[in-house]
């Protein structure tokens, strides 16, 4: 079965510093990986995805993620954190196909807190 793990419940970083939110995956076959962000009382917003190609994927709001096959990781990064980046971040892997359905399997989430 496909799965992702987020080893950190919370990440604290000072504004302006680089941030990393970790994710490791376990899949059979090629991984289709995603990062979503959730603000309080809001839905999940898509940040970026890895399907194939370059290992460094660029996404929304200045975020990027590095796919590392040997380490089975897909860490989310940003060179300079903003206070407004404080939110709950979910790593997800596509599970499928099943009659054209590709449900997402989510990690447990990592709360990012950026202090001024």
């Amino acid at each position, binding site marked *: 079965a496909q799965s992702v793990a987020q080893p950190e419940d919370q990440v604290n970083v000072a504004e302006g510093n680089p941030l990393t939110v970790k994710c490791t995956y376990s899949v059979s076959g090629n991984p289709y990986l995603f990062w979503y962000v959730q603000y309080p009382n809001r*839905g999940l917003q898509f940040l970026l995805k890895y399907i194939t190609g370059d290992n460094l994927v660029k996404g929304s709001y200045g975020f990027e993620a590095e796919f590392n096959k040997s380490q089975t990781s897909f860490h989310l990064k940003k060179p300079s954190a903003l206070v407004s980046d404080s939110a709950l971040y979910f790593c997800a892997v596509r599970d499928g196909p099943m009659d054209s359905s590709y449900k*997402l399997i989510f990690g447990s989430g990592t709360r990012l807190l950026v202090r001024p």
Partner: protein
Amino acid sequence: AAGVIQSPRHLIKEKRETATLKCYPIPRHDTVYWYQQGPGQDPQFLISFYEKMQSDKGSIPDRFSAQQFSDYHSELNMSSLELGDSALYFCASSLNGGSAREQYFGPGTRLTVT
């Protein structure tokens, strides 16, 4: 740009009552997914529809049912509600079965069962 619409946004029901949650996908999206997020939990897949047919089923209780209509909107029907059904219910939509495409999530319906 149009987003996924969910209604109602908040719903309070008593135990053993029924509830219906509605989802309107992004125009031209043909696949709808339902997820349940309990307090402090990650979203868990419930059920999905592709071109109005059920395409996959996850950890959805037998008390729940869902369907996708001809206009592609979807409804999640929940009966004999239990306290443990209190959660945030998300609908997501994608295009062409969503093989490599991201899912776009609605704002969610917060269901509280008392």
